[in-house]
């Protein structure tokens, strides 16, 4: 064993037992309300447009309930999502003041014959936590999430200066797997796990 390995083995025994998250966010929690990020809210609106709106959280629709931890702007909250098996879901969570929020939505896809197929739970979840770009005060901010052990973490990246001819290309790596993102300025984005999609391949309106 060389010096480096021995040093690392020795000092890996030094670790903290303190819960920094609790301490760091304590002051924020006193004054800040939890809110869904705009990208997530936008996804929800998009889902509503695509799907059949109006299911109520708590209805006995024989669905499957999932619980996950959302970390949004420094606040952790336990969110419950109920899927009804017909491509619809109801999301609810409590903010730091104990106020209950709920959102409903759904999504569909189409088979080769044009028939509607309800989105699966995994597809709905992926859509809810899909990367998105928000334009505000002359800046373009990419929001994206990664998931670790049931926790969804929200990150941001200022991509304002990365646009060339209203297109920018970004690679995100999560758990060693790349996600290639092509962003068209104020005209959406497309992702692919193998290559950057050409801007002409999507949102040609």
């Amino acid at each position, binding site marked *: 064993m*060389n*010096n*480096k390995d*021995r*040093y*690392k*083995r*020795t*000092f*890996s*025994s*030094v*670790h*903290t037992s*303190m819960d*920094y*998250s609790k*301490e*760091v*966010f304590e002051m*924020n929690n006193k004054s800040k309300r939890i809110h869904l990020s705009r990208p997530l809210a936008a996804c929800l609106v998009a889902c509503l447009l695509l799907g059949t709106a109006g299911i109520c959280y708590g209805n006995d629709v024989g669905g499957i309930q999932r619980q996950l931890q959302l*970390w949004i702007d*420094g606040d*952790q909250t336990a969110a419950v999502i109920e899927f009804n098996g017909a491509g619809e879901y109801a999301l609810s969570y409590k903010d730091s003041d104990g106020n209950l929020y709920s959102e409903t939505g759904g999504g569909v896809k189409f088979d080769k014959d044009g028939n509607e197929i309800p989105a699966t739970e995994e597809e709905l979840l992926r859509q809810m936590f899909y990367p998105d770009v928000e334009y505000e005060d002359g800046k373009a901010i990419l929001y994206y999430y*990664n998931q*670790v052990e049931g*926790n969804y*973490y*929200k*990150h*941001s*990246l*200022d991509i304002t200066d990365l646009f060339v001819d209203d297109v920018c290309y970004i690679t995100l790596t999560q758990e060693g797997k790349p996600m290639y993102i092509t962003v068209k300025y104020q005209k959406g984005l497309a992702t692919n796990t193998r290559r950057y999609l050409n801007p002409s391949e999507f949102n040609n309106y």
Partner: protein
Amino acid sequence: MKLSTEWVIQKYKDVLFRIAYNICQSESDADDAVQECFIKYHTQNKEFDNEEHIKAWLIRVTINLSKNMVSSFWHRNTVNWEEYMQNMTFEDPHDSELFKAVMQMPQKYRIPIHLFYYEDYSIKEIAEIIKCPENTVKSQLDRGRKLLKQALKEEWEDE
């Protein structure tokens, strides 16, 4: 870019604690320094180039806060490193000798040694992080190595 604070805390809390502990030699002071570093990260509206940039910034801030902590009137140092070491579980019992040798070195050698041997930073990178000339870092590393060699003898390889 800015990674979420929760993510940064989970990923770097032990990295920063080890560095802070190397300077403060006190668990409570090290915790205070690291906590303050995370609060700065969370509250400052600072953009970073990449994750390595974030890590280097966190380390530099932790080093500065830890040094402030040590020189502060409020320096608690309630449990010294010998007592702390008694409660540590080493994978190999001989590792306690290395820990002891590092803790007995002057503070100015401990940080370059730790960043080099634990975090795998190069001399140039260490110089950038601690804002110090490369030659100074190199001589601090050399002197630190000599002290470790004196303390550990054949258990520390010649480099």
